[in-house]
C-alpha cells in the first residue's frame, strides 16, 4: 500500500500548492470591493399566489422560459404543469414511479422531464393532444437528482451514481459522461452561454465542466457537507452553492476561489435550494427550517425571509424576467412571492 499512500500524499501536496496560488491571486475581499455599494434595504416580499393541487411532498419545480408556466414534481406521482399566473393546472402528467426528485422545462416549452429513484430521466411531449412519453433515458446506476434541458434534443442529468451525463434525446443514449465526483451528485446548473455547467455533490465539491469535451475544468472546495443547490451568477463568472453545512458560498471562476460565505450563527438548518434575482444581487435560499432566506450577495447579509411553508422548502426558482420568486415545499404547496 506504500505506492497508494505516496500518490495520496502527492495529490495533497499539489492541492496545497493550488491553495497557495489562489491566495496569491486574492488581493482583496468582497467586503472591500463592495464597500462603496449601498446595502440592499430589507426586502419584504408577500405571497402573491399559492398553488394548491399536489397531495404529497413537492420535490422540484422549474419555470418555463415564458415566465408564466412552470412544472412541479411531487411524490404523489404527478408532474403538474401550471399556468402560475392564473393558478390553472394546464396538465397533470402521471409518473410511472412516484419517487420523483427532479423536473425540468425545456427552453422551447415543448418538453418536460422528470426523474428520481427509478434512476431514469423520462422526457414528455406537452404539445401532443395527450401528453406522451418521448423517451426514457436509462443508463444511470443511481437516482436522478437533477435534470436540465439544453434544447429539445439534449438534456443534462446529475445522478446519485456520482456522474453527470449529456444525453441525445432522439437516440436515448448518453453522449458524454462527466466522471469526477466521489459522492452523489445532487444538483447542476447551466452557464448563461450554455458551453459549461456546474455540479454540486455529496463530496462537498462543486465542479465546472466543459460540455463539449466532457472534462472537469475547475473544482471548488470549502463546504463541509453535501452541496444541495447550485447556480451561476448571471454574469457567468461566479457560482453560488447551498449546502447541508447550513451555508451558501460564492466561488469566482476567474480567480478560482471562494469569495464569500453566506452564514449566520443562528441558522443551523441545511440549504436545500437556491435561486438568484436578475441582477444577482439577491440570493433566495430555501432551508430545512421551513423558511427561505434572502441574502445580499455583495454584502453577505441576510436582508429578508420568506416564511409561510409548513415544511422544508425543497425548491426555489426565479423566472427569466425576474418578476417573482417561487418556492415549493414538502407541505405540498407552491408559493409565488414578490
Amino acid at each position: 500500500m506504500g505506492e497508494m499512500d505516496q500518490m495520496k500524499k502527492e495529490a495533497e501536496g499539489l492541492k496545497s500548492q493550488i491553495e497557495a496560488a489562489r491566495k496569491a491571486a486574492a488581493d482583496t475581499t468582497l467586503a472591500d470591493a463592495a464597500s462603496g455599494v449601498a446595502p440592499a434595504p430589507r426586502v419584504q416580499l408577500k405571497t402573491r399566489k399559492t398553488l394548491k393541487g399536489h397531495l404529497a411532498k413537492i420535490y422540484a419545480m422549474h419555470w418555463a422560459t415564458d415566465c408564466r408556466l412552470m412544472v412541479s414534481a411531487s411524490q404523489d406521482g404527478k408532474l403538474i404543469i401550471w399556468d402560475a399566473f392564473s393558478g390553472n393546472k394546464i396538465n397533470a402528467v402521471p409518473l410511472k414511479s412516484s419517487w420523483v426528485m427532479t423536473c425540468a422545462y425545456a427552453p422551447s416549452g415543448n418538453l418536460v422531464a422528470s426523474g428520481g429513484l427509478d434512476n431514469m430521466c423520462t422526457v414528455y411531449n406537452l404539445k401532443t393532444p395527450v401528453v406522451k412519453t418521448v423517451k426514457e433515458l436509462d443508463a444511470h446506476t443511481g437516482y436522478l437528482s437533477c435534470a436540465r434541458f439544453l434544447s429539445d434534443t439534449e438534456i443534462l442529468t446529475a445522478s446519485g451514481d456520482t456522474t453527470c451525463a449529456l444525453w441525445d434525446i432522439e437516440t436515448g443514449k448518453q453522449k458524454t459522461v462527466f466522471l469526477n465526483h466521489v459522492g452523489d451528485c445532487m444538483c447542476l446548473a447551466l452557464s448563461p452561454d450554455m458551453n459549461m455547467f456546474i455540479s454540486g455533490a455529496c463530496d462537498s465539491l462543486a465542479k465546472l465542466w466543459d460540455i463539449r469535451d466532457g472534462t472537469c475544468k475547475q473544482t471548488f472546495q470549502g463546504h463541509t457537507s453535501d452541496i444541495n443547490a447550485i447556480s451561476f451568477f448571471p454574469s457567468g463568472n461566479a457560482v453560488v452553492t447551498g449546502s447541508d453545512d447550513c451555508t451558501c458560498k460564492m466561488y469566482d471562476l476567474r480567480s478560482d476561489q471562494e469569495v464569500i460565505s453566506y452564514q449566520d450563527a443562528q441558522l443551523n438548518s441545511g440549504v436545500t435550494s437556491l435561486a438568484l434575482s436578475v441582477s444577482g444581487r439577491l440570493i433566495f435560499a430555501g432551508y430545512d427550517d421551513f423558511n427561505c432566506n434572502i441574502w445580499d450577495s455583495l454584502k453577505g447579509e441576510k436582508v429578508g425571509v420568506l416564511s409561510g411553508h409548513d415544511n422544508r422548502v425543497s425548491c426555489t426558482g426565479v423566472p427569466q424576467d425576474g418578476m417573482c420568486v417561487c418556492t415549493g415545499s414538502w407541505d405540498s404547496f407552491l408559493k409565488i412571492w414578490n
Partner: protein
Amino acid sequence: MTINALNQNGFQREQMPCLTKMERMIVAMQDPDMGMKMRNQRLLITVIPHAMTGIDIVEWLIQKYSICEEEALHLGNLLVKFGYIYPLREPRNLCLKPDESPYRFQTPYYWTTTCWPATELDYAIYLAKKNIRKQGELIEYEKESYNALHKRINHTWDFVVMQAREQLRASKQRRKADRIVLECQEQAYWLVNRPPPGVMNVLEQGPERKNNLNTRVQLNAEFYKKEIEQNRRGIGRNRVKSSICLESFVKFCEQYQAHDPIMQGSLPSNPWITDDIMFWNMNSDTVAMPTKLRVERWSFSFMELLNDPLGRKELLRYLEKEFSAENLCFWQACEDVRHGETSKIPEKVDEVYKQFLAPGASRWVNIDSKTMEKTLEGIKRPHRFVLDDAQLHIYFLMKKDSYPRYLKSDLYKNLLAKAIVPQETKKSVFPFMRRQRHSSPSPALVPSGGEDDGKAKSSGAAPTKINSSS
C-alpha cells in the same frame, strides 16, 4: 438529508429544527402555572387522567401566542402530526379537532425529538404484542408489515416473540388505567413512525446519500493518478486577481439593478402584483416598438443583443446596410446545427457549406484560412460541434467590430430615442381611491437622499419622471 450530519468546523446541523421548537411549546403547555388545564376524561368506561379537549388546546395557543384561531388550529395540527399530542378518540386520525374531543400529551420517552431510531425490531415486537393480545387486532397494512418483517428478520423471530410476551406479562401487572395509557402512547408513537399508507410520513428525510466516507467510487491508484494529473493542471492555470473579478460583480449588480424587478419594481407594473399582463405584452418577441429598458440592455453585452429575438432582428437590419448580414445568418445557422435534431445535422451542415463556406458561395463568410481549412476537413464527417470553431470566429468578429459600431449607429440611437417608457398603470376603480400599482408596499429600493416614497429613482435607471402619487 444525510443521516451522517458531519460536525466539522463547529457547524452542527440540526435535524428537523422544528422539533425542538415544538418541544418548547409542549413544555410550556404543561407548565403548572401557565399551562393547560387538565381534567379527567371518560373513555368508554375507563377514566383517563391528565387529558384536555381539542378546543382547550386551540384556545390556549390563541391566548399564549396572540394568534388567530386559524393559525392556532394549524399549529395544533402540527403538534398532533409530529406525535407530541395524541387523540384518545379515533387514535388513528392524527389531527386536531377544535371540539370536546379528548387529547393527551405524549410521554417524553416517545418524543420525536429524541430521534430514537424506530427500528424494524422494535416495530416487530410492537406488532407481535398486538397480535398476541387479541387475534385479528392488526389492521390490513399492519398485517402486511408483520408478514414482511417475519420474512425479513426471521432469524431473530424467537427473540421478537419472547420480548413481546415478556412485555405483555409485565403490563398485565399494572392497573388497567395505566395499561390503557401506555398502550395509547405506544400506538401513537408507531402511527407517527410507521404511518399507514396514504398518510404523509412527517419524519422522512429523503434517500440515503453516499459521500467521501461511504463512497461507491473506487479510491484506487487509478483514481489518485487522475487526481494528481488534475491538480498539476490546476497549478498551471491562470488566476485573475480578485480585485478585478470582484469589481466586475459589483459593476454587474449595479448595471442590472434597474432591470431587476424584485430590487426596483417594473413598469407599467408587476403582473404578479396587479394582475395586469401589460408588462408581458409590451415585452413580447413580436412587439412593434420595444421598451427603453429593453433596448438599453442590448448595450450591456453582445450576448444580451443576440439573446433577444428583437435585438437580432435589429442587428440584422443594421448588418444588411453594411453588407455583412451573412455573418449573423451564418451564426444562426450554426446555432441551429448545434441545438437541432441529430438526424438533420448532415443535411444542415451541407446547406451551411453551400451557402456560406463553399468558394464562390452566395453568402460567403470571411473566416481565417486556418479555421476554414479545419472546418472544411471536419464537415466531411459532420457532427454537432463541427462548425464550432468557425462560429466562434464569426461571433468574435461581430462582437469586436459590428457590435460596437451598431451601438454608435443612428439605427440604434433612433430606436433608443423612440423606445417606449411605459406609464405606470393607473387603474382606479373609484376616482378618489388609488390602488398602489407598483412593487410591494416595502419594495427593495435603494434609498436616495432620504426619499422614501417608494418610487424608482436611482442612478442606473432610465431617466424617466414617474408621477408621484400623493
